[in-house]
């Protein structure tokens, strides 16, 4: 049976079709999930895609977090279902407290779109097992509110438990604490990051690299072997 990976569409989601394509290219079956529908339709994992859900009005992710699909998703994530939040999806994950901390406006106050180098700090999560710890990858970054922050205690906890999954290399594009680009929960099934792996899965389009594909093959392997 093929592995089913859901992609939630909120009003204003933009990279949902891109995430579906990445899942397909990795060999799984993408399943479109709708924000108003509580049912996860028997998916094995879920991607919360990038975009401007609800226009990023109020705060990025603040309104989507209360959608019906999130109720079920929060339950399932706590039971161990792999969940990946990309950019706006990461913002939804922090707003719904599946991941700690919060996202602030970039310190330079501009939207930024660039090819961003990252270091994979933790290759043991559901979404990073196809990378090597310490490996450097390059994938697009594009956001307005990407400055990750949390209180000192939370940061210390994330650092000491190895829960910082990605760090910006060369340039910190938004003023994020400790160059943090992505984090995971304690169980390692929920991962959020600001840059966009789904835009780096084909040599032809985007930046012309495929450094993002292992996200989607990682989760596939983990699901098949479990």
């Amino acid at each position, binding site marked *: 049976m093929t592995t089913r990976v859901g992609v939630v569409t909120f009003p204003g989601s933009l990279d949902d079709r891109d995430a579906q394509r990445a899942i397909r290219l990795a060999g799984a079956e993408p399943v479109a999930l709708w924000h108003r529908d509580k049912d996860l339709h028997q998916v094995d994992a879920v991607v919360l895609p990038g975009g401007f859900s609800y*226009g990023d*009005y109020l705060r990025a992710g603040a309104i989507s977090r*209360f959608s019906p699909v999130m109720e079920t998703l929060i339950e399932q994530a706590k039971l161990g279902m792999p969940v990946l939040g990309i950019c706006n999806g990461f913002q939804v994950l922090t707003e719904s407290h599946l991941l700690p901390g919060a996202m602030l406006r970039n310190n330079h106050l501009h939207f930024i779109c660039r090819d961003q180098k990252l270091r994979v700090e933790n290759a043991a999560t559901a979404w990073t097992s196809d990378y090597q710890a310490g490996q450097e990858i390059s994938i697009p970054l594009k956001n307005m509110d990407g400055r990750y922050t949390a209180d000192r205690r939370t940061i210390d906890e994330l650092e000491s438990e190895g829960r910082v999954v990605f760090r910006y290399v060369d340039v910190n594009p938004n003023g994020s604490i400790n160059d943090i680009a992505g984090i995971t929960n304690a169980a390692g099934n929920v991962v959020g990051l600001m840059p966009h792996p789904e835009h780096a899965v084909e040599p032809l389009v985007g930046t012309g690299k495929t450094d993002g594909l292992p996200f989607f093959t990682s989760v596939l392997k983990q699901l098949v072997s479990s």
Partner: protein
Amino acid sequence: MARVVVDVMLKPEILDPQGQAVQRALPRLGFTGIADVRQGKRFELELEGPVDDAALARIREAAETFLANTVIEDFTVRVEDGQ
């Protein structure tokens, strides 16, 4: 130090997409009975000197020319009470 607050709101006739999005979300979260929501900006300015008329006049000028975009926004300047 003295604090002056400048509130900047979109003019009433100007579309406020953010306020609208909040207003529409509130009933879904179980908060009813709210007829309208407008979202604006609040600036808190800490002054080095005293908040006299001259200082307030200058802040009003800064609000007019810089903090607010008077093509679409209104502003109010007030000294924070309870300081």
